């Protein structure tokens, strides 16, 4: 039985339209990628509130900050690699330092970008954004959660960054299941006591599959969907450490500085006796290829995750 696949980018574009209706101040900027980021949906509905900025991302970020200073709620979109690394100083000064109400919503994060290659596979964005004061950082896991996160971004003040992938992903949640979602509060998507998977973004689905593999071996894994990377849900991390004594983080991102980095900082400072592994991109540039081939080669599919979890708790 196949999973129901939905593209989170479409969810983003559709939610922008809904929010545009509720918030006349909401404006959208894009840098020649509106068909890919799906801001084109908003552009068609509200052409007077959509600003095509051309292939000029640095200018786009600072412009968004100016808009925010006048009470607008700018959503800024492009690929994750161009939305963060390329425009870091503009974000640092004009958005984070100024605590501007700018919402950077990036698509094409992680290695599931696939064939375009490492130049386009952003695996450092969560780290880059997490280290900035005032910045809130999200990595939603499916289309339903993407919708809710976009709503949270629009209705809460302050600089925020969210990243989703390029590909369609399995639906994990029904709308009702996310009515209580809030910033900085991780979700226990599946409970278990033998090991905790703490994952974000597309990796949540992979760890859910790994959980199924492990259950056949009598291992009951907990799955935490850590949609907010910053502020991270420290309480929940500590709860997992105490109750399962083993934590494995999984992200489509470098193991340095992102979700795994954030969780390891908490564990180290608390000095808890908890076994711990970070799964992600191991400080390398990956390569072009089908996403499934890349997840296999770089050890990020359910099979690999289950194996590492198994070793961790033996």
């Amino acid at each position, binding site marked *: 039985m196949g999973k129901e696949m939905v593209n989170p980018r479409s969810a983003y574009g559709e939610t922008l339209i809904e929010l545009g209706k509720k918030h006349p101040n909401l404006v959208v900027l894009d840098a020649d990628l509106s068909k890919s980021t799906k801001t084109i949906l908003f552009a068609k509905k509200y052409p007077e509130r959509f600003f095509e900025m051309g292939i000029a991302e640095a200018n786009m970020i600072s412009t968004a900050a100016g808009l925010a200073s006048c009470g607008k709620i700018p959503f800024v979109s492009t690929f994750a690699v161009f939305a963060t690394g390329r425009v870091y100083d503009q974000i640092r000064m004009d958005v984070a330092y100024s605590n501007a109400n700018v919402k950077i919503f990036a698509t094409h994060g992680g290695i599931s970008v696939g064939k375009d290659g490492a130049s*386009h596979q952003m695996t450092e964005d969560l780290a880059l954004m997490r280290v900035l004061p005032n910045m809130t950082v999200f990595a939603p896991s499916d289309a339903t959660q993407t919708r809710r996160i976009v709503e949270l971004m629009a209705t809460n003040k302050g600089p925020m960054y969210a990243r989703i992938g390029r590909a369609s992903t399995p639906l994990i949640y029904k709308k009702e299941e996310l009515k209580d979602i809030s910033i900085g509060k991780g979700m226990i998507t599946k409970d278990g006591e033998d090991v905790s998977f703490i994952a974000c973004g597309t990796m949540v689905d992979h760890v859910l599959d790994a959980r199924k593999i492990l259950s056949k071996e009598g291992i009951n894994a907990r799955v935490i969907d850590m949609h907010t990377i910053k502020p991270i849900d420290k309480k929940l991390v500590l709860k997992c450490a105490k109750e399962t004594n083993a934590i494995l983080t999984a992200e489509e991102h470098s193991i340095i500085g992102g979700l795994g980095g954030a969780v390891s900082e908490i564990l180290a400072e608390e000095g808890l006796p908890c076994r711990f592994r970070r799964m992600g991109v191991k400080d390398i540039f990956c390569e072009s*290829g089908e996403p499934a081939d890349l997840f296999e080669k770089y050890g990020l599919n359910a099979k690999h995750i289950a194996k590492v979890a198994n070793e961790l708790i033996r």
Partner: protein
Amino acid sequence: MILKPYDDEVIKKLNVTAVKIRKHVIEMLYRAKSGHPGGSLSAVDAIVALYFHHMRHNPKKPEDPNRDRFILSKGHAAPTLYAVLAECGYFDVKELKGLREVNCMLQGHPVSLYVPGVEASTGSLGHGLSFANGVALAGKADDKKYNVYVMLGDGETDEGQIWEAAAVASHYKFDNLTALLDRNFLQIDGNTEDVLRLESVRDRWSSFGWHVIEIDGHDIGQIIDALLKADEHKNQPSMIILNTVKGKGVSFMENNVDFHGVPPNEMEYKLAMREFDVLQRRLEAS
């Protein structure tokens, strides 16, 4: 400068080579089921003229310090660069089959570290002209005679970095540098003039202190003449505005923004190949 003479025979041969490269490009993209046909096809004739006629380079010595350099700033046209490098002999033509596949050399966008003949890693638009400036500066500093050529997309020149680099090149009088602008009037979200107006392109580059030449970017004779003029021009960098057609050579891709980043399906692939075969026969019979 040694002037390489050319006649109708030379042009004919280069035109046939250009068709061969276009065939490779379409085949590679069809096989990879992803990639960028439009901007790869519009760039073919200039890159063919550079590598198969104009530049001083030796595929057996890709690291030769005296070689002329070509930098593909619009990195999404990688298939064209790869096909040209392979046909020149930088690596086995068989590698083209592995474009964008895992464990293969040819990445979706050019990587200098992995591919012999690729001068700069590109794919994030807007960097190439600055990189070329660096190469030009080193050439001046070391008193080398090589020339640097860099190809930019027209949409790519939305980037502020391009204009920072444009200012530097004219300030330092890089007459060993020639930029080629693939002026196909399309980017992803539409016509360049609707997305973010570029005109007057000619006036913009002139006002930045560049020597500007404007030609038909699919006429190989004009391309060669323009390159010679650019090489000879002193005290200024040269900009060759190549008036091109995005998707050039495949009727249904020409001027069609939908083929910026979508590969041909099976039927489109076959149609395209048939068009190339007809063109090739016509050229060879001429």
